[in-house]
């Protein structure tokens, strides 16, 4: 991946400014069609999902009161994992996007909703809705690109630190909700700031996160295990809740990786979005997202982020409508010769992981490595890693040039 404007073959070079504005007009029309037909059916949908989620969670937690018995442990853990995933994805994520604000129900509103996640919804709304959705895939502006700890684009300079990124990507996946909380707090940046210089906002936000963590942990790791104590199920319930949190974290992390990180999803330079028109913004969303193909159950469990392209084009439309607009959106992609990026989940997850692994090495290193030259390549990698800043920069450039001459660049 390289910002589109730096690519040898720019995937949008064939579009005239008029084409781009025409795409925008047609997408606006699709959006308007949904708005005009939005009504009771949609309201009934989200209420049904919320109700299902609540019954599933209450039921699973009730079953876990007897989790000393293996069937109860398994059923409860599976149910609770699914309930937590539903809460975070199809319910929480989408309500917090304001997709259901039009119902004017204060109980199902982006300004009042709270979710089963250690990140307070207010903080997530800022970092996600405002920064990520506005500056999608713009290097240096959209912190979702690597969350500030990973190298996900060729244009991000390589550092030996990144060689371990597959490891901490996995750790981040396991504890994803904490990763998001830290990310929303800009914890890294703020911890580097001397304590007395940290902003009041940061202090207030950290307090809110800690309070939320305490509530979540009390529920999952104290109250419910204690309630299970009479059947001798303290530890099994604790383990079930821990497992459900991990399962939810791994799942949400995977879904979110599929949205922007599979190979072939485009990134953009900061300067390319100056004075961006609505048509150009739409185009960036079209090229900067990837879908997951699959069953209806997969769409619901992914919060319809399996329709990431449609979601990024119309983040405030009710999620149950994305499947319906997808064929119309795809027709526009086809007509204008753009790549509608979609694949089954295992393929998208593998593709995203491939990207993390590839970019954990210097540009071109993986492409120029084969079983025969592996020893030399490892020596070269060691030299690059231990070199001082200036010589490293030179070595990285040489390696990149060599890869370009000898090998066809990876897709």
């Amino acid at each position, binding site marked *: 991946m390289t910002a589109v404007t730096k690519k040898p073959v720019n995937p949008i070079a064939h579009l005239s400014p008029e084409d781009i504005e025409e795409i925008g007009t047609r997408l606006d029309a699709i959006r308007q069609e949904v708005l005009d037909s*939005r*009504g*009771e059916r949609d309201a009934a949908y989200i209420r049904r999902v919320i*109700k299902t989620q609540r019954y599933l969670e209450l039921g699973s937690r009730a079953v876990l009161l007897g989790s000393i018995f293996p069937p109860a442990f398994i059923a409860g853990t599976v149910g609770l994992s699914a309930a937590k995933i539903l809460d975070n994805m199809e319910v929480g994520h989408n309500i917090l996007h304001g997709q259901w604000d039009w*119902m004017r129900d204060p109980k199902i509103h982006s300004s009042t909703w*709270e979710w089963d996640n250690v990140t307070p919804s207010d903080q997530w*709304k800022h970092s996600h809705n405002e920064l990520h959705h506005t500056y999608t895939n713009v290097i240096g502006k959209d912190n979702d690109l690597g969350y500030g700890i990973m190298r996900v684009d060729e244009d991000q300079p390589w550092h030996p630190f990144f060689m371990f990124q597959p490891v901490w990507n996995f750790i981040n996946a396991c504890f994803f909700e904490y990763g998001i909380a830290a990310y929303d707090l800009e914890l890294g940046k703020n911890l580097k700031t001397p304590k007395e210089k940290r902003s009041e906002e940061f202090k207030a936000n950290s307090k809110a996160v800690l309070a939320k963590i305490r*509530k979540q942990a009390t*529920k999952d790791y104290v109250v419910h295990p204690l*309630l299970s104590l009479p059947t001798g199920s303290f530890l099994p319930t604790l383990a079930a809740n821990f497992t459900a949190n991990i399962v939810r974290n791994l799942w949400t992390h995977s879904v979110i990786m599929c949205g922007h990180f599979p190979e072939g999803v485009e990134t953009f330079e900061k300067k390319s979005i100056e004075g961006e028109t609505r048509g150009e913004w739409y185009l960036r969303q079209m090229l900067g997202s990837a879908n997951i193909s699959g069953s209806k159950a997969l769409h619901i469990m992914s919060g319809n982020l399996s329709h990431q392209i449609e979601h990024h084009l119309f983040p405030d439309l009710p999620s149950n409508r994305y499947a319906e607009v997808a064929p119309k959106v795809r027709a526009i992609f086809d007509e204008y010769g753009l790549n509608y990026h979609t694949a089954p989940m295992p393929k998208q997850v593998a593709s995203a992981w491939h990207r993390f692994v590839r970019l954990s090495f210097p540009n071109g290193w993986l492409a120029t490595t084969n079983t025969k030259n592996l020893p030399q390549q490892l020596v070269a990698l060691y030299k690059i890693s231990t070199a001082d800043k200036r010589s490293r920069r030179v070595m990285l450039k040489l390696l990149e040039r060599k890869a370009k001459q000898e090998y066809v660049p990876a897709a």
Partner: protein
Amino acid sequence: MLARSAQRGTLSRRLRALADAALTPLSVDEVLDGFHPLRSGTDLKGKIVAVEAETADAATIVIKPGRDWTGHAPGQYLQVGIDIDGVRLWRCYSLTHGPRRDGHISITVKAIPDGIVSQHLVHKARAGQLVHLQQAAGDFTLPLPLPEKILMVTAGSGITPVIGMLRNLFSKAVAPTTAITLLHVNQTEPDSIFKDELRALAAAGHITLVEHFDDRDGLLDLARLESLVPDIGTRAAFACGPSGLLDALEQWYDERGLSLDTERFRTALVADAGVGGTVAFANGTVIDADGATPILDAAEAAGVLMPSGCRMGICMGCVLPMKEGAVRDLRNGEITVVVPGEAPGGVKIQTCISAAAGDCHLDH
């Protein structure tokens, strides 16, 4: 005893705290609402138990209110919130029931053409549906002690607060001695809501009923008021009906130095699209906003501190409750109107894509 009930209070508080801790981020209340929406201690709701037709386009909606309903004074109105086509809409309707053993309450609604809520309530509402309620409000009530002589002037559905008063007055063991004249104006006889009940009250000698039908008697000419009600100047006067009639009546009473108590119904005024208006904030600041500029931009340009986010209608970071007024969605021209009292807490609008379409009041 006292110690024991205090203990019980602490115990139930502790149990509630424990349940809340087990259910966070939900609360016990939210979970219980799913099973028992009319219980005490939650947002007031009601269940429609019957929809009774009154005329071709008017119906009485009988509602079982939630446990926390505190009752009303006859003549007061009820704010009802109902989900229509997925959107919660709030309207005010006068309470029309008399004393009832079952504790149910009722409103009587006349379906006005293009009235989304009134059409829905009259023609589509069914027993079993849940509605959202606020406690009764309004000061259109009879004074106590009752004046010796009263004149009530009602037109169309303006009879609704008055029928509530009459039903309560004349269900008492001892009927009041007050001399009540009711001038009831309708376009035609079939349009007249409660006409049989009113005629029965008149036949029983409780009230003097003067029925006026426009198709039979011509439009009501206020010059004839004194001949219709000869002792009008000595009667405490109450009027409810369309704005035109109330304005004329008020003028009539003012000219004679007499006082009149009125109850007005909703009058929704939408400025022409693109006209703009003023935006008032809670701290008293008022700014001018044209019909093409987002309120967010106009307010910031005028130095008001505003919450903001993506500035393109996506992130909901700029949402503020509008207590009153009209705004136009700059993306599709859709108008959102808020009439005071019809949306408790206001309607939340996105200031970054909404332009003023009239004078607005934001709670910020």
